[in-house]
């Protein structure tokens, strides 16, 4: 094959399965074996540019690590995304019974309150570079919100495809940006299948179809930030929610890349995966010691994780093997408990996926998969205000009184727990 043209710090696209190389276009699948394509970087060149000193001078956004993100030139969409807080969660640590715990809080990511702003910022910047003006996605909600908002902010046209039964908050949160929202009578895997066919017919930048090699790389920025915010070191344990398994594999990759370019020292670390029991093809395969998953039909309140045919499930299972990570899943009740626990102890209201992460972390600590005297980071990926439906009848209720001091006194008198609790 002729030598491929490099772009910025990117050398080519390469099949993860057979290693065949392709030019840096909007394509996502190896023509030979359908393996996913991944961006190949020039790490030697990156090493000379991306130093701690250089990073320190840059604005606090995900783009401070831009050499390791797949755009040829300066990003044009979502320049302010990322650098969300890493919180030391002492009260939750005590509740879960672990020595040290951190929360990476993408529930407050800019602009649409989920980690998807990271991947969309990359996908849309790259789509622009490749000459596209219409962007599209298949989504369980958060991605739709982010594509709609970022397309609006950059003057691009957006089509978002969602399953018909999404939470109202996530639907309105796409419509408000004037995106074309197409609701499909089916679950996410069916939406996905349809989008693969639409992407083959219409020449749009489909962020998680033909733009996937670029899009998925945006998730690494969450990992990069964790390492910098921890003082340039790798956390011993990281717990990541899994839908397709993409975020988990990219967190692992981010740690590997920072080691490779010399930004952090190599150290032992484990990456653990969290799923909802109602859609747990990856954790089921882990439990059974399989290296490949069996697809399932999702049935869980964690709709953002409801992918029954996880495209990166195979690679997620490999990450557990390589890093000594574990995987587990939690029921709908345990998910709600997880959401409440995080809110009550740390003042962070996460969406259902956050409840999955907290719930699974609790199980992994209890089982010793994460030892109690270690330190762990939990990746919180989305905001609870978007999934109010899942918890509204499970949180406490308001106490209703007239604007009367006497009634308030009587209320306290009647219910002592209001003060003692």
């Amino acid at each position, binding site marked *: 094959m002729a030598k491929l043209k490099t772009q910025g710090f990117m050398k080519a696209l390469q099949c993860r399965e057979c290693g065949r190389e392709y030019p840096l276009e909007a394509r996502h*699948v190896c023509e030979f074996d359908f393996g996913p394509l991944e961006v190949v970087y020039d790490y030697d060149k990156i090493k000379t540019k991306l130093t701690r000193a250089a990073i320190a001078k840059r604005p606090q956004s995900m783009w401070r690590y831009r050499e390791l993100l797949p755009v040829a030139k300066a990003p044009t969409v979502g320049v302010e995304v990322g650098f969300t807080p890493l919180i030391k969660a002492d009260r939750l640590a005590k509740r879960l019974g672990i020595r040290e715990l951190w929360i990476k809080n993408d529930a407050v990511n800019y602009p649409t309150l989920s980690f998807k702003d990271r991947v969309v910022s990359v996908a849309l910047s790259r789509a622009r570079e490749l000459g596209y003006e219409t962007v599209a996605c*298949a989504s*369980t909600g958060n991605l739709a919100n982010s594509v709609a908002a970022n397309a609006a902010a950059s003057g691009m046209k957006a089509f978002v495809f969602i399953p018909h039964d999404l939470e109202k908050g996530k639907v309105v949160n796409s419509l408000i940006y004037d995106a074309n929202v197409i609701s499909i009578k089916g679950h996410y895997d*069916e939406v*996905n299948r349809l989008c693969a066919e639409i992407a083959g017919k219409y020449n749009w930048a489909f962020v998680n179809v033909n733009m996937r090699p670029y899009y998925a790389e945006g998730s690494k920025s969450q990992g990069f930030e964790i390492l910098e915010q921890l003082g340039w070191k790798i956390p011993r344990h990281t717990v990541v929610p899994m839908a397709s398994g993409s*975020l988990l594999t990219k967190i692992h990759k981010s740690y590997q890349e920072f080691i490779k370019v010399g930004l952090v020292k190599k150290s032992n670390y484990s990456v653990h995966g969290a799923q909802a029991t109602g859609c747990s093809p990856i954790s089921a395969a882990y439990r059974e010691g399989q290296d490949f998953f069996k*697809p399932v039909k999702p049935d869980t309140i964690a709709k953002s994780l409801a992918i029954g045919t996880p495209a990166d499930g195979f690679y997620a299972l490999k990450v557990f093997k390589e890093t000594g990570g574990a995987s587990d899943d939690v029921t709908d009740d345990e998910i709600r408990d997880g959401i409440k626990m995080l809110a009550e102890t740390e003042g962070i209201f996460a969406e259902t996926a956050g409840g999955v992460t907290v719930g699974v972390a609790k199980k992994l600590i209890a089982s010793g998969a994460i030892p109690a005297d270690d330190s762990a980071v939990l990746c919180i990926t989305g905001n609870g205000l978007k999934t109010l439906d899942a918890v509204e009848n499970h949180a406490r209720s308001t106490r209703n009184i007239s604007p009367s001091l006497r009634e308030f006194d009587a209320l306290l008198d009647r219910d002592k727990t209001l003060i003692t609790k």
Partner: protein
Amino acid sequence: MPVQIRIPTPLRKLTHVEEVVETSAETVGTAITDLESRYPGIQERLLDDEGQVRRFVNVYVNEEDIRFLQEKDTPLKDGDEVSIIPAIAGG
């Protein structure tokens, strides 16, 4: 009406840019054999060395994943629609 097979973009070079091809095969497995006889090279794209559908290839009969049906032995009848689709990232 024969069975229609929708060909994904990465394989259209092999089918001379045809997006839909027809077959009278009675199962998914024999449909792939039939495709191979007309478009040599297509079988090794879809099946691994052990003759199983490759792990990143999803095959659907009338919108249902064949892994929920009878895999390669899934029967086909007149009017059925088969889609071959690469796995996709999350959303």
